[in-house]
């Protein structure tokens, strides 16, 4: 009752590290190792064929250590997917900070290409699961609808686009288009498409150009394009 709040605060500040903190940090490191092992193994192997033993071997963690952190394989995957999804949408949101539409679409395309190329196994697995599990469909749909509505707001404010075509439904379907095209290039690796797509930078620019044309009704300003001027554009 008579305790002075300032003393309490200073007492807390000087309190030594709680006993479990080091163990907790080590636990986090182990979790991180397991998660990284999952992502790298998914690039080699189908999720359904992947065993916990495989993951532990790559992560250099004892099988018991795995079960200390996760009850089952699906829990691990769920955590990884949610973390990646959060990082992915943060990167896409950041793209919307660019003022002009082409920069925004270009950086969004960059974020998508990076996510698909760097964690192709994870994206493939996410798509397989989304076929069966509604929760994953919603994870994508909610975030996508939200992002698209920000994009449309931004474009309307910029007043460059043709207002008639610029409905959220249209913008949403164009995001699906970009998603499917990159899926075919980096995850399905359709040889016919991979052969004509060129390098990563070319893919990003050409996808952003198609996206810009469909959304806004014209090509981006000539000066902004690199490959289009080298006869490598669409």
């Amino acid at each position, binding site marked *: 009752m008579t305790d002075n709040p300032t003393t309490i605060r200073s007492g807390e500040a000087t309190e030594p590290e709680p006993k479990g903190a080091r163990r907790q940090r080590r636990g986090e490191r182990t979790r991180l190792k397991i998660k990284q092992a999952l992502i790298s193994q998914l690039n*080699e192997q*189908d999720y359904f064929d992947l065993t916990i033993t495989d993951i532990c071997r790559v992560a250099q963690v004892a099988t018991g250590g795995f079960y200390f952190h996760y009850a089952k394989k699906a829990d691990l995957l769920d955590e990884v997917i949610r973390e990646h999804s959060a990082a992915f949408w943060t990167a896409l949101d950041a793209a919307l900070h660019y003022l002009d539409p082409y920069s925004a679409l270009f950086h969004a395309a960059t974020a998508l290409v990076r996510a698909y190329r760097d964690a192709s196994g994870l994206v493939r697995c996410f*798509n*397989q699961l989304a*076929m069966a599990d*509604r929760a994953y*469909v919603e994870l994508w*749909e909610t975030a996508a*609808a939200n992002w698209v509505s920000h994009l449309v707001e931004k474009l309307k404010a910029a007043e460059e686009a043709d207002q008639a*075509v610029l409905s959220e*439904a*249209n913008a*949403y*379907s*164009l995001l*699906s*288009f970009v*998603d*499917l*095209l990159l899926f*075919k290039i980096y995850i*399905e*690796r*359709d*040889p*016919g*498409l*991979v*052969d*004509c*797509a*060129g390098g990563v930078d070319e893919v990003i620019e*050409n*996808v952003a150009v*198609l996206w810009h*044309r*469909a959304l806004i*009704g*014209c*090509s981006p300003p*000539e000066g902004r394009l690199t490959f*289009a001027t080298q*006869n*490598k*554009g*669409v």
Partner: protein
Amino acid sequence: MIALEKVRSIEKEFWFCYWLDDDDQKGCARRIGAASIFSGAQGTYRSAGVGWSIGESGRWRQGSAGTDGIAMRQTINPAPDKPERTRQGAKGERTRGRIKAAFADLLGAKSFTSVTIADICRTSDITVGGFYFHFGSQEALLDEVMTEYIEALVGDFEAALEDRPRGGLADAVCGAFLKAYSERVGLARTFQQLTRMRSDYALRWRLASEAAMEMLADRLRAERPDLAPDRARFLAYGLVTMIISRLDLVYVYRDRSGRTGTPPREALGRDLVEFWKRMAAGRDAA
């Protein structure tokens, strides 16, 4: 390993030859040549300096390649080895047709993994024994129904690419896909799921549509000579992907999202053509 796949085109049959190399990146099949043959299935065909032959025992064989686990049919010999269905005349064909139609109907309401043979028999009014007389398994039925769907879709797609007055290309190609999706929703949905879930179906679509993609790229180049050949193909893939992604949203994910009802077919067609024209327009059009 060399694999051959038959692709039906309007007037002729194409054989595509794929070299499957285990070291090849992620088991992707790479096309090394294509030939068109007009009669007979056996023999040696030569194209673009690459020769290959269809083996004497041209039976269906399963092959697998690479780390990706692509399974594909190898070496097709349609004529001599395949036993004729001597016991089935016109009536047998009618029953097969009835089973296939019933299956296609069921796919409109259910996913292909949850349709049972009992469902199919009940809907088509035949016995389970009758079903097995006509089809070895449900997988065989699925296989046949999807093959017909893909052939019809690719047939319409290729027909849309035939020479027509400038500007009609977008309408014709969008119309071909729109027809497949709107008239056979169950099959379209099954096709979408299969191509996303199973690499053998993805490969099948790839092989079936490849020739049409080349034709589309040529048509696009004819309209826009500034396009490099590679980029004309990229644009062709882009346009078809745009159509498919939009139609998937409307017809396949429809009941899932509940966000939008099915728009009228005409409005959807107009949207597709509008997007096509915007995307295919070159820099000069800006």
